[in-house]
Structure formats: structure tokens, C-alpha cells
């Protein structure tokens, strides 16, 4: 015989449901992801911004960034986007301020308590709605890029020692990452307990990203930052520090001939006899001659190409068993990257009838994909918990409100099922370098960027480095020179 639910039981359930809805509303307000974030993916919100960026209209792009309050869960991300666009729009002071603000947020979260109640609230909110409620933790590759751009902002204001501070911060990020990341990723899976079969189910259906990731071994080792660091150390006369960072960059990009030459050059001038022997055996051309010619300076070109692609939402249907052992299909949304890399042709420079080509130093798209892959276990874990919570919620709603409750719950569940597609999406896709000795004086060099020729005016000082930051986004090409 069926037991009739008593009135008290009904009331408590009513109260429970009311509490649940109230909680959802509070969470939306409190951890303050805007409602927009709950129902619209970040990739959709950034579409206009990226469109303007592709056209080189950076001011418009800045204005199109969705406004966020300072307690918004994606506030630091939107500051990153803004600072990057301000950097492109050649406003170093503003860009510097905004980057500094993001850095302060990172610092704060690093020194925060071990167990943060606010994070618990966010996670709880994420289980009831989606991952966009969780505050955006800036991934390590984005942190190292932040410091690199910040270094350029200081260089633009002719503050080499300020730039070096940023470089040291970037190095601290990478050191800590190397130490912390070992083994921390795979602990998550154990938390699931009985429901771990859902985990494997999700993981098996997840789209492949291996083409995008390529040869990248981890999501934080950024050869570009190391190279920039080495360059600035060299400019500051700290050859030994420079040598170490050139070597680190070379470890990540062993085929880059400019890095090979730099390592060789400094090994020779620092008399690292063991290393010289080692590298001579490794590099084909084995030139150990140091260019000691007088009245020569160096030009180093950083060519930034394209914009990173956003994470995309990937939906899949997963079967979930209700408490009556019925099977119901649930749509699950996960973030993913396209499994292909854009091809960028190298920038070509013509000097004294010789052609020189840039070589890749970082593929940010690959770093992004790799760091998403590293986060996946945690994302999938939350996703599975969410699946179970939402099914429980639906059951409750059905028990309370019959079909109407069921429909309401289903609509809520479906409309809140949004993947967390947040990432710093105004970064360049690929960065390439070129290094060349030039006679001191004014030069008018011919560059070939994506089939279009561009004239580059630089002044080279003897025994000094001239940095050229070349940006080629879509139809937009521009450059800045820094004498360091």
C-alpha cells in the first residue's frame, strides 16, 4: 500500500524547493556572474570584440567588451582583454594599470586561505547552474603572457628595470608551475566515488584536441617569455642570466635556429666549454663564431600573428539513471578547442639581398588547448556532479509540481547547461622571432607579412638591441620599435 505523504512532509519539501530556488537566485547575485554568463557562453559574448580586433579597430573592440563589476567572477578576465587591447591601441599607461590590477587579483588569490568559503559557494552554485559561476582562475600560460606584455609596457616607457621586474615575475610563475603541476592533476578523479563510471563515459566522448596541442608538453612552459627574458637580461648586461633563459627557451623549441645561435653565442662569450662541445654535436651548422664586428647592432623582431580561437561548446547526450532505474538522456556541454591549427606563413625580411625568415617561439593556441586538457578531469568531475544534482532537482520538481514542475525543471536544466568557454581570447595565436645583426644607423627594411610587403624603419645603435614588435592580425599590420 502506498503511504500518503503527510502534510508536514509536503511542507518541508516545499520549503526545500523554495530554498533551492532562493539559493540559485542568491548565488547569481552573490558570486555575481551576470545572468548573461549563465545563459550566454563567453565565446558568444566576445564575438564582436574579436571582429573589431581583426579589423584593427582596437578602440571599438575595447568598448565592445561586456562591462563587468569588480566582484564579477570574470572580472579579471575582462581586465586582461581590455589591457591587451589597450596595448594594441598603443596606450601603455592604461594597459599597465589594468594588467597590474589583474596581477593584484592573482596575488590575492595566491595568498588567500587554504579553504575559501566563497569558493565553496561558487562550486555549489556551479553544480546548480554551470561553471561560469566559478571565478575565473587565470591559467599559467595567460599569466606568463600578462607579464610579457607588462614588460613591453614598461619598455615603452623606457623603464628597463621595471620590465625586468615583470620578467622575474613571469619566471616565478613558471617555476612554481613546474613544481606544483606534477601529479596534482589526476587526484580529482578519485573524488567521484560511485559515480566514476559517468566520468569515463564523458571522457570517452570528449573530442580529440591532439592536432591543436601538437608537441606541447605542458600548458605553462612558454618559450616566448624565456626568450624575452633572456633578451632583456642581455640588454641589462647580465649575460649569465640571459644564457640560462636562452637555454630554457631552446629546451622548449629545440629546432629554432635563432635560439641555437643565441645559446651558442653566449656559451662562447661566457666560456662554457662543456656546453659548447655538447651543442656543437647537436646543432648541424655548429657555428661558434661570435660576431664581434664593430658598429653593429642587433634587431630582434617579434611577429605576432592572428588571434587565438575561443573555446567552443561541445554538447553530448549522456544517459543518467533515475532513482527508478529509468534511463534519461541528459545534454552535457563541455568546453573544447577546434582540433586544427591555423597555418601562418613566416614573416620574411630582406637585407642586403638576403632573405631571412621568422621562426616560431610559441603557439599560444596549443598552450591553451593543453591547459584545457589538464583542467578536464576537474571540469568533467563537476559536470558529473551537476548531472546528478540536476536529475535530483528534476525529480523533486516532478514530485512537487507534477508535469509542470517536470517541464520547468527540464527547461531550467537545459538552458543553464552552458560550457565554460572563458579564456583570454584577444591573445595572438602564434609568435615568431627573427634576429639579425645590422650595421648601426638608420635602416629601411623590407618585410613580407602574409604576402604583403611592409616597410620597416629602424634605427640601430652599435652593440645595442632594437626590439621590433610586429602585429599581424587579420588585415591589420603594425609595428613598434624599442631601443633597449
Amino acid at each position, binding site marked *: 500500500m502506498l503511504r500518503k505523504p503527510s502534510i508536514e512532509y509536503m511542507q518541508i519539501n516545499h520549503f526545500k524547493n523554495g530554498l533551492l530556488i532562493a539559493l540559485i537566485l542568491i548565488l547569481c547575485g552573490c558570486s555575481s556572474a551576470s545572468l548573461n554568463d549563465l545563459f550566454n557562453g563567453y565565446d558568444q559574448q566576445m564575438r564582436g570584440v574579436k571582429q573589431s580586433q581583426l579589423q584593427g579597430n582596437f578602440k571599438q573592440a575595447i568598448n565592445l567588451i561586456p562591462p563587468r563589476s569588480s566582484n564579477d567572477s570574470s572580472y579579471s578576465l575582462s581586465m586582461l582583454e581590455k589591457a591587451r587591447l589597450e596595448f594594441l591601441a598603443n596606450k601603455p599607461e592604461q594597459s599597465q594599470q589594468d594588467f597590474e590590477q589583474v596581477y593584484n587579483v592573482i596575488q590575492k588569490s*595566491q595568498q588567500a586561505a587554504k579553504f575559501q568559503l566563497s569558493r565553496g559557494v561558487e562550486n555549489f552554485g556551479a553544480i546548480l547552474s554551470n561553471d561560469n559561476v566559478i571565478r575565473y582562475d587565470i591559467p599559467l600560460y595567460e599569466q606568463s603572457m600578462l607579464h610579457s606584455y607588462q614588460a613591453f609596457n614598461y619598455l615603452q616607457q623606457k623603464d628597463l628595470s621595471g620590465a*625586468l621586474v615583470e620578467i622575474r615575475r613571469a619566471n616565478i610563475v613558471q617555476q612554481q608551475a613546474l613544481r606544483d603541476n606534477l601529479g596534482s592533476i589526476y587526484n580529482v578523479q578519485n573524488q567521484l566515488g560511485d559515480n566514476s563510471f559517468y566520468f569515463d563515459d564523458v571522457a570517452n566522448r570528449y573530442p580529440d584536441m591532439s592536432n591543436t596541442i601538437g608537441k606541447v608538453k605542458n600548458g605553462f612552459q612558454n618559450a616566448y617569455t624565456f626568450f624575452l627574458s633572456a633578451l632583456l637580461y642581455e640588454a641589462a648586461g647580465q649575460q649569465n642570466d640571459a644564457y640560462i633563459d636562452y637555454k630554457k627557451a631552446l629546451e622548449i623549441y629545440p629546432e629554432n635556429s635563432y635560439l641555437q645561435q643565441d645559446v651558442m653565442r653566449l656559451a662562447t662569450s661566457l666560456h662554457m666549454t662543456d656546453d659548447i662541445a655538447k651543442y656543437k654535436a647537436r646543432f648541424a651548422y655548429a657555428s661558434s663564431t661570435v660576431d664581434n664586428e664593430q658598429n653593429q647592432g642587433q634587431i630582434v623582431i617579434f611577429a605576432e600573428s592572428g588571434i587565438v580561437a575561443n573555446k567552443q561548446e561541445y554538447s553530448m547526450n549522456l544517459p543518467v539513471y533515475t532513482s527508478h532505474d529509468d534511463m534519461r538522456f541528459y545534454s552535457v556541454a563541455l568546453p573544447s578547442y577546434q582540433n586544427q591549427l591555423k597555418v601562418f606563413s613566416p614573416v620574411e625580411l630582406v637585407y642586403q639581398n638576403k632573405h631571412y625568415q621568422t621562426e616560431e617561439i610559441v603557439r599560444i593556441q596549443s598552450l591553451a588547448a593543453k591547459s584545457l586538457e589538464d583542467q578536464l578531469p576537474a571540469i568533467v568531475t563537476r559536470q558529473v556532479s551537476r548531472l546528478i544534482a540536476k536529475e535530483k532537482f528534476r525529480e523533486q520538481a516532478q514530485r512537487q509540481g507534477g508535469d509542470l514542475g517536470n517541464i520547468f525543471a527540464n527547461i531550467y536544466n537545459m538552458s543553464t547547461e552552458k560550457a565554460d568557454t572563458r579564456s583570454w581570447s584577444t591573445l595572438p595565436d602564434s609568435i615568431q622571432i627573427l634576429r639579425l645583426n645590422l650595421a648601426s644607423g638608420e635602416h629601411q627594411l623590407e618585410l613580407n607579412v602574409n604576402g604583403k610587403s611592409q616597410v620597416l624603419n629602424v634605427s640601430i645603435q652599435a652593440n645595442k638591441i632594437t626590439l621590433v614588435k610586429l602585429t599581424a592580425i587579420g588585415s591589420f599590420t603594425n609595428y613598434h620599435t624599442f631601443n633597449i
Partner: protein
Amino acid sequence: MNRLFLVTALCVSIVSVSGCSNKSVVRYGDAEAVETTDVNFGSTDLQKIANQMADSLVLSPVVGTATENNRPIIFVERIKNKTSEHIDTESVTDSISTRLLRSGKFRFVDMGSVNAVREQLEFQQNSGLVDTSKAIAFGQHVGAQYMLYGNLASIVKSNKDASDVYYKFTLRLMDLKSGLVEWADETEIRKTKGKELVGW
């Protein structure tokens, strides 16, 4: 039911009260009080460095003989910032040179104001507004005999329990004529911040 209502009401009132009662108050504090807001370079570190360096320089026997009959002229080169923080090292050297000047044993030339001085002298000489017989002529400045320079380096480490920062400040005094380093000293500072276990 009633009890649940009571609990909810209590929670709401706690939240609203804690929100409202947070008034900020302005107070004057002791400028030399120990400051431990965070592990970053702060006023206490600056004062500690400046005090120790100035004392060490004034009390060192080498300097004692050099300052016996005259007051040597020093110029301050910059302190190289080798830390991972944007520290105003000029403010450190300002504190040190002020203390040294106050001791009455040294005199300083200020390289930072050279341009302003030149402008002023040019104004006196060439503007036509100043009585040239009383104007200060060029070429009467006294050159420095010693150079003060140094480094500020740091090692920063952190794990999930604590963050630790170590500063080392090195200061040297060079005789510009002979190129000899007549005096050097260093100060070390270590700061550790343990993380709270639970926080908002």
C-alpha cells in the same frame, strides 16, 4: 516551521548588519610602527635597511679615518632593483643619504637635480633678468670623491601553506680616484606569511 523561519530571519539580519556596520575610520598612526600588511616590500623594510646601512657606514673605522679632518663628498648612484617587485629604490637611497647628511660627516652632490641646476644657472647668466655680476658662474661645483651604489635582490618562494620572501640589500662605497671599494655592508630581511586555514 517556525524555527526554520526564525533561523532564516536571523541569517538575513546577520548579513545585513555585517554589511552596514562596516564604517571606515581615518586614524593617524606611528610612521615607524612595524607594518605587516603583506609579505611585499614595505615601510618597515625600508626603514630597517636605511637605518642599518647609515649606522654601519658612519661607524665603520675606514670611514672614521676618512672623515677625521674633512667631510668627504659622495654621490649616490642608483640601487639596482633585482627583485620581483616594483620598488622605488630611489626612496631607499634618499633615506640613507638623508641619514648620512644628518650625521654631519658627509656631503652630497645630487645628480638628480643637475638639469634643474643647469637651467637655473643658464637663467642667471643669459636671461638678462639677473644682475650678471652677482649671478653664479658656471664651473664652480665640487666633484664627488666617493660613489655610493648597491643592489636589492630577493628570493620569493611559496607553497600551499606559506609564502616566504628574502631580501638582501648590499651597499658599497667606492673611492672614485682609486676605484677601491672602501666600505660595503649588507642587510638581510626574511618575511614569511602563513596562510589561514579557512577564510571567505
